[in-house]
Every structure is written in structure tokens, then in C-alpha cells.
């Protein structure tokens, strides 16, 4: 063994570990997320999971690449009506614009009642998602969209 080989150390040495769960199928294999100074180092199976016992399938084993591959977006892309290309806009601008679109569409299409009975909905704003999202995310989506805005047209992969 060369000195270079002897000097090799695991790349996740001294890393912090977050206990996580695979984002792919419904089995829910345990994953260990190794990170250091805000940087992802590796994602591996969690041997203590009674579901998976440390194993991961090809997709789960590639979760690190899912987070770090060059095709991943980190900026908001925006396309104007009839435009032939994308523009980049800031996150805050994008959030303000989306809130305005929701507000205007809702104002145009909201139905308060039918035959004297409350209906309190708009069918002109719809939502899909998501089976890939957390319980907390789905809960807030339903709460704001349905409980707050009156959107009935909500669905996710569970129905297909």
C-alpha cells in the first residue's frame, strides 16, 4: 500500500449527519445525509432503519446526485406572454407577481353563493401536487388554497 493510499480518509469524516428519508418511492428507506460547512458530502443508507436496514435501490443511492447535478435550478425563470425565451427574476419579485396573479384571477372568478347557499369558491385557479411533498407542505397548501382562497380544484398523484 502506498503512502497516498494510507493517507486516504472517508470524505464524510468529521461531517455532521442529518437523519433523513429517501425522496423516491413509498417504501421510505432511511438515509443519512452527511454535510460539512453547509455543503452536502454524501447521502447513504441508514443501517438502523427497520424498513430498509441500510439498503438503497439505484434511485435512493443516487439521491446525492439528485441534489448536486448541474441541471438543477437555483434561480427563478420567468417567461412573459408570447416570449420566445426565459428571463431571470428575483425570488421576491416572483413571489409578488404570483400573489398578484392569484388575487386578480380570484377577484374575476369568485362565486360567493348559489341559490342563497354559500359556495365560496373559484374554479379558475387550480393546483396539482404533491405526493413528493411533506405532510406539512400538503397541509399548508390545502389550508391556504382551500381554507383561505376557496380553491376546490386541487389534486395530486394520489388520484392518478
Amino acid at each position, binding site marked *: 500500500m502506498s503512502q497516498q493510499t494510507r493517507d486516504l480518509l472517508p470524505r464524510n469524516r468529521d461531517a*455532521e449527519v*442529518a*437523519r*433523513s*428519508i*429517501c*425522496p423516491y418511492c*413509498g417504501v*421510505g428507506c432511511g438515509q443519512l445525509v452527511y*454535510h460539512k460547512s*453547509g455543503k*452536502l458530502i454524501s447521502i447513504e443508507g441508514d443501517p438502523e432503519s*427497520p424498513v430498509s436496514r441500510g*439498503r438503497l*435501490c439505484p*434511485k435512493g443511492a443516487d*439521491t446525492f446526485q*439528485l441534489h448536486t*447535478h448541474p441541471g*438543477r*435550478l*437555483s*434561480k*427563478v*425563470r420567468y417567461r412573459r406572454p408570447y416570449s*420566445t425565451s426565459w428571463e431571470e427574476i428575483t*425570488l421576491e419579485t416572483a413571489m409578488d*407577481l*404570483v400573489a398578484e*396573479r392569484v388575487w386578480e384571477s380570484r377577484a374575476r372568478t369568485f362565486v*360567493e353563493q348559489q341559490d342563497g*347557499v*354559500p*359556495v*365560496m369558491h373559484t*374554479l*379558475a*385557479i*387550480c393546483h*396539482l401536487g*404533491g*405526493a*413528493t411533498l*411533506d*405532510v*406539512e*407542505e*400538503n*397541509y*399548508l*397548501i*390545502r389550508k391556504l388554497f382551500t*381554507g383561505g382562497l376557496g*380553491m376546490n*380544484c*386541487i389534486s395530486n*398523484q*394520489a*388520484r*392518478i
Partner: protein
Amino acid sequence: MGSNMAENHPVSFQWVMEAREKNRATILHIDPRYTRTSAMADIWVPLRPGSDVLFLGGLINYVLSNDKYFHDYVVHYTNAPTLLREDFRDSEDLGGYFSGWDRKKREYDPASWLYATSPQRGALFAGALPDTGESAADPTLQNPHCVFQMLKRHFARYTPELVEQYCGVPRQVFLKAAEAYCSASGPEKTGAICYALGWTQHSNGVQIIRTAAILQLLLGNMGRPGGGILALRGHASIQGSTDVATLYDILPGYLPTPTFNKDGNSLREYIAYNKAKTGWYANFDKYIISFLKAYYGDAATAQNNYCFDYLPRVTGDHSHFGFWLDMMDGKVEGLFLMGQNPAVGAPNARLERKALAKLKWLVVRDFVECEPASFWYNSPEVERGELSPETVATEVFMFPAAGVAEKSGTFVNTQRMLQFHNKGPNPPGDARSETWFMYHLGRRLKAKAARDPQPRNAPLNALTWDYSTIGSNAEPVVEEVLQEVNGWTVADHRLVSGYADLKADGTTACGAWIYSGCFPAPEKNLANQRQSRDLYGHGWGFSWPSDRRIIYNRASARPDGKPWSERKKLVWWDEERKQWTGLDVPDFVRTKPPDYQPPAGAEGDEALAGDKPFILHPDGVGWIFVSTGLKDGPLPTHYEPLESLVANPLYPACETDPATKKRERPDNPYARSPGDPRFPYVLSTYRLTEHHTAGGMSRTLSHLAELQPEMFCEVSPELAAEVGLKHGEFATITTPRGIVEACVMITRRLHPLVIAGRRVHEVGLPFHFGTNGLVKGDSANDLLPISEEPNVYIMESKALLCTIRPGRRPRGKAALKELRARMKEAV
């Protein structure tokens, strides 16, 4: 069955292998294709796509004809003894229809399906639970009107001979499978059934699952270790998105969304409609009122019916396909897509994509620029001249999303287990979680509503939305959301320890009653437990409800409370300590003794005797016969797929499930059925281990792309010879909806089946490919029609008709020309 578990849930398949290797379990796999799962099975049964009810009904017939049912379980724990009304007519009596079919409305009035002693309700509909405090029953199972005798008559024609003719399963193979599976029954043995989209994605999908449920009830396998029916769900938290219901017809915890002119006109009517008198669902009002308190907080009071009128009413079909067809017709202004890609993943994908061009605005949230975000400049429609950027008005916002390692939150896996994932590093750049997006969008909209307090903004003004935020990104504290889901007492904001603490008087709030108990104290996030301490994994995560790992586990003990056997013990009655105990959390009131008899007039759970395990049902028993709740029949019966080569052998005048909606229209056309000379082969779609759904999380990654780089089709050597297909070269597959190309894989794993004397060929297609990513290909979903199963509105993807020819697909407009030419051929 209806699953390729080794392929699509590979890590869980280790348990199947262990059962086989360590406990000599017998593995049966019933599937049209010989797959990775079949290779590990002891018995593989090839089956015609769409004939599942016929096969499973054949097993039921086998069990009944050979007295293989678990007698004591059936008599005490199911509604087999229950007497039905004398005006009930079965599908065997009415040529494929049950009594109550309205030809004009194309729906059933289920009044005649009620038990003989169920009181009538004012407004009967699928979903209202029968009040069956005392249903007349015959424990000897002899009365001709009892469910058991009805079941025998119903499945009498599902013989091994019929299975051979119309499933394509040789009689001897069927009998071998039947003998192997049906012997896994009784005190000492159980059998489990696992299924996935091979059962759900059918025009009668719910009824297929129902047939399996009947089989498992007859064999006494429900609520017992090594038994049950496991739905193998396909996404990391699709169970969560079903439970916490981003689905139009249910609110979190499976509370029905109020429907205009049905149960939605007032809180009082809503409760009267949905609350059962007997069984655990008599607690319904506690759950809806606590839910309203979670949403609307202090604004929700007894005087204003807890803001019930702020909930939007269902007025029609607001499902995915319901609103997508409206979108295609120009009736939708804006759409949010969050981690879902219908441009590749939904049926009639050409229509899915074209409808996006009718929107005023579109918001897409994903890791990469997926197909829905680029439809306006990079799609088959742009290639074919059907769309162009210069003519598409849709304003598009593409937001980058955070990955699981970059955020904390809860997933619910396919066994109902909540597992909390903990955040590692921050997401890159402007990528954020959906929690962040929803919270900050909500903040902005509430600010607008505060400045504009008119009636339509009242719900938004009343909505509680004050979650704390942390970190440089102002990320909401997800634990606060999960605590709201768990519930608390309003006065002191003290977390409840479970749904038994919830009240109907406005003193408790709870976002989803079925999860209550997952966060019983500020430092006790049970979803984040990571110390498994027993065989069932207690100490790791939290299985709803109340951390029961096997629901209805009272059925694992005899009526007298002792286990059916030492080998199969799970929960049992401890006579000394006067409570239920065992290896799992008992799914039963802990102190109710097995010999408890309800007093006359008892309500709620008190109305159920000590030997009634199915506590959510008003009669406490498993439902072999489902008298209310389903739109297409109280018993499953064989219907052909919407596109089939074969006439229905049982019901020539009722080919397909009459309650299924085809949504047939010029942009959603169907082949002629049965048998269409233009489309002579059966098409089925499915998944691969190395890819994930629409491909955004796999075709974009070099390692996975390398493992499965190309769209392909699977055909048998016989079909290849008939059509002239060559292995490794291209083929073009066409249906009335679309035209795709695929590389040809000739394989012995597909067999032509002989159905009623003729050879039936199958073409198999994975559905993962699209125009974006490192590896691209045509989308199989371009070929499928949109259709809506009657109960849950899912489409049929596993059995349709197609044609196939050698050679590549034409490019540009020529592709549509070939499709139109095929449609114009003589039918």
C-alpha cells in the same frame, strides 16, 4: 398481483425474500409479464390485462366451493351473516347491473343495497353510512338473503374453466395457485396480498381491490400478522398527500369536502349526513369542529358554526381530469404545479400539454426545468406545429425547489408510517421548500385581504397563519405545522395526546385527526423517533392511527379474546389486568372486554360488542358486501376494460363498468370495443427500477440515465414475427390518442395468451420518458385516454388497445398525418 414489487419497491422486497428463505413462505406472482418479481416467485401466473376480477373471483369461488373459508372468523368478524333487503338484485340477476341503476343519470340509487334492517335516510348517496345497531343476521349462513349466500350466487360462474377461457390461465395453473394461496388460512396460517398500480389504474380499479378484500375476509387474513392487504404506493409521501388531502373531495383526515346541495348547506346538515350513530365514526363531529378550529382559530365560534361556511363547496368534478378538460376548454386562468409533471405523467399527455397553452399564468415548482415548464418552446406540439411560442400567451413562472436533504418535514410511507426527515445544508440559491413558498405566498395574500375586507376575503382574514420562521431564508418552523396537525387544547395551547382527546365544543383544534398523537408534547416528535425496539418497529416513526402497526388487530384474537394461535398472536385480552395487550398497540378500546354486550340504544363505540374488530364500521364487522360507499356496486363483478378485444363473457349487454366515465370527446377518442381492427393488440404501461415517474428525478441524473437510457417497447417473439419487428431497431406504436416510437425489445417474458380461442398479443411500455433531461424519448402517456373510475376518478393505464409497426415515427406534422390516417381506416 397488480404489482412488480421487486422492480418498483425493491428495498422492501428484501422482506419477501426473507419470508421465502427463512419461513418457507410461498410467493405467488400473477402478472401479464414475467418480471423481476416473477423471477423470485414460486408460482407465476400469466394473466390477461384487465381480467383481474375474473381471476380473483375465481379464487373466491374456489374458496366457497371447497369450504376453504375460515368459518369462525367469517361468522363473527364479517357481515357474511347479515340479511339484505328482499328488493336487492345482483348483477347476476340483471345482466351486469345491480338494482337501482338509473339509465338516464347513469348512476346508481343504492337504497336497495342497504341491510334489511338499516333505517332509510332522507338523502341516500354513496358515502352515507348505514345505521345498523341491530342488523338482522343468520349466523348459520344459510338464509338465502344473507350476504354469504348472495356471495355464493354472485361468484358461481367464476369457474376454473371461465378463468382459463378469459384470463388465459390454464386450468391446472389456476388450481395450483388457488390451492397454494387458499391454504394460507386459519388459526395457524395467514397470507398477505400486495398490490400497486396494476390494480388501481383500471376503469374498475376499486372493485379489483374489493375482490381481494373479500378473499382476505373469507380466509380470515385481515388484522392478523402476515396477513392483510398492502397497497404499495409509489411516491415518498403519497400516503401523506392522500391523508392530508390535497384532493378535492376530502379534507385532512378523510373528512368529506362539503358538497353543494348534498351535505354542504350547513354545519348541522353536514354532521347529520356524515356522522354515524354507532361505531367509532360517531366521533365525526369532534373531528370536523377541531379541524375548523385549526384553520380559523379564534374566529371560529359556536355562534358562526366554527366558520364552516368559509369552506368552498364542491359543485362538480374538480378532480385532475375534471379541471384539466375545463382548462382545455379555456375555463381556467391559473395553475400551480408543485413536484408533479402531468405533461409526461398523466394520461392523454398531448391534451395535458396543449391545455397549458390555454392558461393565463402557470407556476411550476421543481428541481429542474421539467416538461410542463417548457411546453411553450420544447414539446412534441411545438415540433408538430400545434403550438409555437409566438402564439402561446401563457405567463410562466419556474421556481427552483429544495430537495429532501435541504429541509425538515414529514413523509408518510406506504405502511402509514410518519417519518420525519431532518434538514442538512441549505438549498442552493433561490431554491426553497414548499413550506417556505406557501407560507410567504399566504403572508402576501393575507396582507391583501386585510386591506380589502369584503365577504369573499373573510376566510383569508380568519385563517390562522402565524408560524415562526428561522434562519437567513426565513424558513417556517415545520414542527409548528406538525403540532397543529397533531392538535392542542385551545385555552392553553397544550398538545393533545391523541384523537380521543378531541371535542366537539370548540375547545380543541386539530389539523388531521388520524395523525393526532404524533406530537403529544413539545419535545416528543414521534415521527422523528429513530430507535426501533421490536418486530413491528415501534420506537421508529409513528404509524397512524395511534402507532398501530396492523389496523383492526382485534381480529388477531378469537371472539373470547385469546389469540387464534400462539404462532399468530398479536393482541389479546389480559384477564388479570382487564385490558387488551400484546405485540402491537391494540386497535380497540383498551378496557372493553371480549364478552362486552352493548346495552339497548347504545351509541358510538359503546354500541359495538367486545368481539367486533372493525371499529370504524357502524356494525363493527368487515364488509364482504358494501352496502354504502361505492358508486358502482356492493360486490365486484367482471367488466372488460374500456378498450378490449373481447366481449364480456358474463354480460354481453354490459361490456364495461357502467358507472365509469369515459370523458369521450374529439380530443379524447376511444377505439371501438370489443375488437377494433385498427388497434388489434393490448397495450399496458409500467415502471422501471432505475427511473422514477415522469423522469424529472431520474432522467436528469447521469448514473440513472446511464442505467436506462432509452425508451423501449417489450413484445413477444410471436408478435415480433407477426408484425416484422426487429430486436434493437425501432417501432412506432399508435392509439386513437397519439403516436410514439420506441426501441424494440423482443423477449420471452411476454407470452401471447389464448382468450376464447384467439391469440391476444400484448405490447408493454415504460412511461418515464419525455423531451427534457439527459436521456429523452417519447411519452407513453401520449397514447392513453383520460377516463375516470367511478369512485376515485383514476384513469385506466393497464389495458387498452394499440397497433404497432416497424420503423421510426414520422417527424413534425407527418406524425399527426399518420395518426389521422390510422383513425380513418375501416372499422
